[in-house]
């Protein structure tokens, strides 16, 4: 089982994802964006952070790299793809997920633990949750306001909308590709998490999905 954790210049959640995977019982592989090749990995995580310093706009420059062509190829083959925070922004910019993430309303970066409802459990990442289950995860972003463009399928919704997202959307998916703004990798270690390890079932889900 090979889980790639994709790193661009400016990615900063890479080691956090590796640690979450470890706590959930798996080993991830840190892959520098120029080394990513389609067909090698069973799953790929686009970690959070600020690829290319969020210049132009969050995710836009990373989305135009060759690495994302490879991720697209893998995604079409059914490889589970997860984008967290900046990873989600990259997936929408690259067209792997519909819609866009634009600056928060009210404006400004916001760092806060929030309640998130799991609204769809038919993904490789959410199927261990109960439908409607509320979990706590932190958000830390300046451009997380979801704006749909046509059809979309929400997987997570905020209980209290922190950023002006359309219909409280916190995460969307398309088949085997999921993106979300909250940080499930930061809600695994019990000493650091608030109100339970809300992200743990996502990682356990992915791992058991790959093992099935």
């Amino acid at each position: 089982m090979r889980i790639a954790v994709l790193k661009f210049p400016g990615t900063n959640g890479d080691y956090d994802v590796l640690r979450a995977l470890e706590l959930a019982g798996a080993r991830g592989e840190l892959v520098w964006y120029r080394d990513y090749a389609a067909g090698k990995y069973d799953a790929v995580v686009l970690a959070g952070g600020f690829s290319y310093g969020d210049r132009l706009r969050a995710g836009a420059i990373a989305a135009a790299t060759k690495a994302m062509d490879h991720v697209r190829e893998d995604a079409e083959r059914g490889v589970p793809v997860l984008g967290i925070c900046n990873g989600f922004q990259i997936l929408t910019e690259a067209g792997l997920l519909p819609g866009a993430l634009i600056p928060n309303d009210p404006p400004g970066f916001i760092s806060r633990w929030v309640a998130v409802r799991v609204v769809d459990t038919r993904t490789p990442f959410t199927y261990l949750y109960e439908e409607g289950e509320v979990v706590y995860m932190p958000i830390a972003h300046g451009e997380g306001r979801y704006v749909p463009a046509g059809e979309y399928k929400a997987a997570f919704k905020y209980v209290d909308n922190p950023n002006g997202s359309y219909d409280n959307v916190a995460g969307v998916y398309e088949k085997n590709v999921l993106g979300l703004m909250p940080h499930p990798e930061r809600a695994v270690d019990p000493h650091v998490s608030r109100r339970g390890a809300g992200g743990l079932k996502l990682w356990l889900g992915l791992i058991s999905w790959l093992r099935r």
Partner: protein
Amino acid sequence: MALSPGELELIRSALGREPTEVEYALFRSHWSEHCSYKSTRMWLRRLPSKAPWVVRGPGTDAPLVEIAEGLYATFKIESHNHPSAVDPYNGAATGVGGIIRDILTVGARPIALLVNLHFGPPSHPHARWIAVNVIRGISDYGNRVGVPVVGGETWFHEDFTYTPIVLATCVGIVEKDGVPPGGAEPGDLIIVAGLGADKSGLGGSAFASKTLSEEAEEDLGAVQVADPLMGKKLIDLVREARSCVKFIKDLGGGGLATALAELAEWFQLGVVAELDKIHMADREMGPAEVLTSETQERMVFVTSPSKLECLERLLEKFEVPYSIVGRFTAEGRVVLKWRGEVVGDLPLSLVAKAPETPWPQEPYAPPPLPHVPEPPIEKAIDAVLSSPNVAFKQAIYERFDFDVGVRTVLKPGEGDAAVLKIYERGNLGLAVKGDANPRFTYLNPRLGAANAFIKAYRNVAVVGGRPLAAVDSINVGSPSRPSAYWQFVEAVEGLREAAEALGVPIVGGKVSLYNEYKGKPVAPTVAVVVLGVVEDVSKVNKAVWKEGDGVYVWGV
């Protein structure tokens, strides 16, 4: 700021000739107050800095404190007051970047930032403009490089309306064998990596050794645009570079001039530098400018020729521009070349340190305490709780990603100090907090400084931390002002007394002088950051209460 006549005379007589233009630039930069601590180091020497767990004390880019078998913590504080007055956004951001790079020099992973912010009253438009942009600068930089801002302190006082005090502290951890080993030899290479040198920083350190008057358009040279993307690449690079380098240095105040001088002094070796080899963003630069450019987001690596390839591979992977600028020699001289020609040649002994310059001191009697009315208790509670100095700081710390790294056990607002989990060692933790109270240090610099120390110590202790070490930041007016110099000396004395009484060594610090606006010095501000170890983070005290809990008051 020019060299003093005495300093010039000293240089002339040691060389037996006039210094060249490039040599002059080196002295001007490296002997500036900011780099040489010439007015302060004789006093700072008095601070206790030793303890069995202090592996490396003050005097280098960053100290090392053993927190567990084979694991070190490092932390350091930086002031960016002048840049933040002129360009609050970039001034604060580059301050954060600079303190992170100090931590990188010992091969450490930066795991936390703390900020001590002192602004004018929020009702004043200029003070608010500074505050909003300083906070945005810290947020944009810290968040982008992925180092959580886990705590701090914010203070409002009219003295800081035009001249804020902006302090950033970075904490890092490093395994014993991750520290670059040192041991440079003749023939080893000196590599500069990061942004191309430009003129944007020229005179920065000299600028920090000057007072502010009006918004000075001509001081622009000292303002730098922050580049957190490059800052982040350097963090990633250092994380993998340990086996390829012997030594790492920050290129900070004083630029290459200070870096070369310090390298030569540290290893007691000569240095030959080819200044035209350095990569430049600005082609129009001469040797003196290259030598003293303070372009941020650069670091110096020392490596042996046999490990060069290993380092170059990483520099290329992370897309960090670099140049091989010089090498160590067995002759005890600092030799500077430009396009093959020697433009400077100085004996090591002369470069090392600026002569110390103590200034006259004069105590001042603080004004009598204002009469404090005794309002009805309900009103008093309102007045205290609505004071910006006491009010909730959520609006500030929510701008900072305090969870990245997944170590923050006690987050801002949850306790008196931040607690970080050192998961490399199970449930081990670090507790950190920085405190200052300019009002106290104004009324009595000595007791005020001691109080800041003791408050930070208490904050670490009450969450369950055992204090191990402290760093301090002293911010006063021009040293040529006897009352300001006296404040500085008294503050050092207060810190010494507190450190000795508490048994907590001071392993580093920063002095910022010339904090004045239109000839009026700001209230002297002494911040102390205390770092302690928490044996088991699952037992940390959180500020969480429930109905029925008792309230107890301890102490005098």
